[in-house]
């Protein structure tokens, strides 16, 4: 085994070699994610219960504010499905950046494809997301009269696509936030604006009251088609083909751009830690 530095990208000369190396180290990704989950479970009193409590509390807070205090959205199924899907993507921004910044010792000392760290975070958060979907049904089946139908098979399309989207988002944020730590401060605010721009706390019918230009702007938000496809899967909403096409396009584009940005930067990463 001979390796020479520098090479064009940090870890491997070609993209497919990089991906092969990632695949070779899949056990590491799995242990890293599981280790983080175990450590978290072990250090809290309620442990495993937080998998249910977290989404429950998240859903409760938003329903309390936007369903009861400022009743902009009383449809709890609509609200919670949106919140859980949104949260899964938005947390990959801070999580992606932290997975690099918080592991600086590891990065400085050991050579491995750096993308492993955001991927492990993504895996961890995917478990959380799946748990939140269980919570969603626990609430909406009794309270909103929603019964999951065969449309739930759309999850098999929506989830892999969103994973690609989130990976791109996590990788791009890490790429930008490692040299510019300021960005970690901005993330919570960007997330909040993104939330208000997404069809979660306001009903889709609200769009009809704004001009077509505005409507177009709102629809440019990648969360728009993503949440729409999820609502088809989870709640049986009719599927608009345009949403499906837009979701595929957004997820692939963000995934490819984010990962490419990350890999190109990888060789310089240690200099900023």
């Amino acid at each position, binding site marked *: 085994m001979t390796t020479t530095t520098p090479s064009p990208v940090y870890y491997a000369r070609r993209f497919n070699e990089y991906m092969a190396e990632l695949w070779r180290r899949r056990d590491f990704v799995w242990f890293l994610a599981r280790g983080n989950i175990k450590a978290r479970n072990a250090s809290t009193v309620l442990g495993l219960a937080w998998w249910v409590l977290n989404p429950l509390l998240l859903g409760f807070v938003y329903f309390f504010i936007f369903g009861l205090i400022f009743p902009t959205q009383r449809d709890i199924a609509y609200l919670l499905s949106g919140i859980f899907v949104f949260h899964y993507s938005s947390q990959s921004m801070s999580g992606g950046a932290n997975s690099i910044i918080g592991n600086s010792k590891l990065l400085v*000392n050991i050579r491995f494809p750096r993308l492993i760290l955001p991927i492990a975070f993504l895996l961890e958060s995917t478990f959380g997301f799946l748990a939140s979907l269980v919570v969603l049904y626990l609430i909406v089946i009794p309270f909103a009269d929603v019964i999951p139908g065969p449309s739930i098979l759309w999850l098999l399309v929506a989830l892999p696509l969103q994973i690609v989207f989130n990976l791109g988002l996590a990788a791009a944020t890490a790429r930008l936030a490692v040299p*510019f730590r300021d960005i970690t401060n901005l993330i919570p605010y960007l997330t909040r604006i993104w939330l208000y721009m997404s069809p979660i706390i306001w009903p889709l019918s609200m769009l009809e009251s704004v001009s077509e230009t505005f409507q177009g702007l709102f629809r440019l938000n990648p969360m728009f088609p993503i949440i729409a496809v999820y609502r088809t899967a989870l709640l049986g909403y009719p599927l608009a083909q345009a949403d499906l096409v837009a979701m595929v396009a957004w997820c692939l584009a963000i995934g490819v751009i984010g990962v490419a940005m990350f890999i190109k930067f990888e060789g310089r990463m240690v200099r900023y830690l």
Partner: protein
Amino acid sequence: MSAPAIKVENVWVRFRPYVDRRPTLRRSLATFRHKETQLVEALKGVSFEVQKGEAFGVVGQNGAGKSTLLRVMARTLRPDEGRVVVRGRMSTLLQLGVGFNAQLSGSRNIYLGGLVAGLNKKQVDERYDEIVEYSELGDAIYRPMKTYSSGMFSRLAFAVAMHLDPEILLLDEVLAVGDEGFKEKSMATMHELLDRSGSIVFVSHAVRQLADFCDRAAWLDEGRVRAIGEAHGVVEEYREFVQRRRKELRAQGLA
């Protein structure tokens, strides 16, 4: 002679201070505007080779570039100029227990430590029993590592690192860990590695120990190799230099 295990060729590493200070957007904009960046050159054209079966030491004062050099050899830091060719499986002990999660048991950390270094789960499975036995931790292996004493911690870290079947080992300040008994064992393991024509690069301020252990050594001074050769000779030269410097400083202080 067979090809060297590590070949460092004319390596330059420059840091821009604003980079070191964790650039903010503002500072970056400032440097962007002025375009003048003050460079700190951590390594200035360093070249040497480490042969197979050789223990190679690196000495030098604080800030001489030793850690930067180790990172370049570990290939976590890409040099600005020059290149590093490594032939063989490398294991690094730049810091003991990197990749460990103190919340988790020693047992799980054996897996984490092995996987982070590039093994797969099956390969760790095969080595697991040997690692536990080598570490002499007994049932403590099932306790979270945060309950370990520092000696227990480094014993496990060392046991994991040595069972990765390294052909090249990079050591920063750690040559032997644990109590006297374990130290002897860890030294014996190092010598076994060298006998199998593995290579060890050892960076340390414990220059006597370094001179005794290493075959050859390099003295790094302000980013340049000031002397290279038989370990005792290089270390002696370095020690004389340090003593001379100290005398000069003392004389200045008295004047």
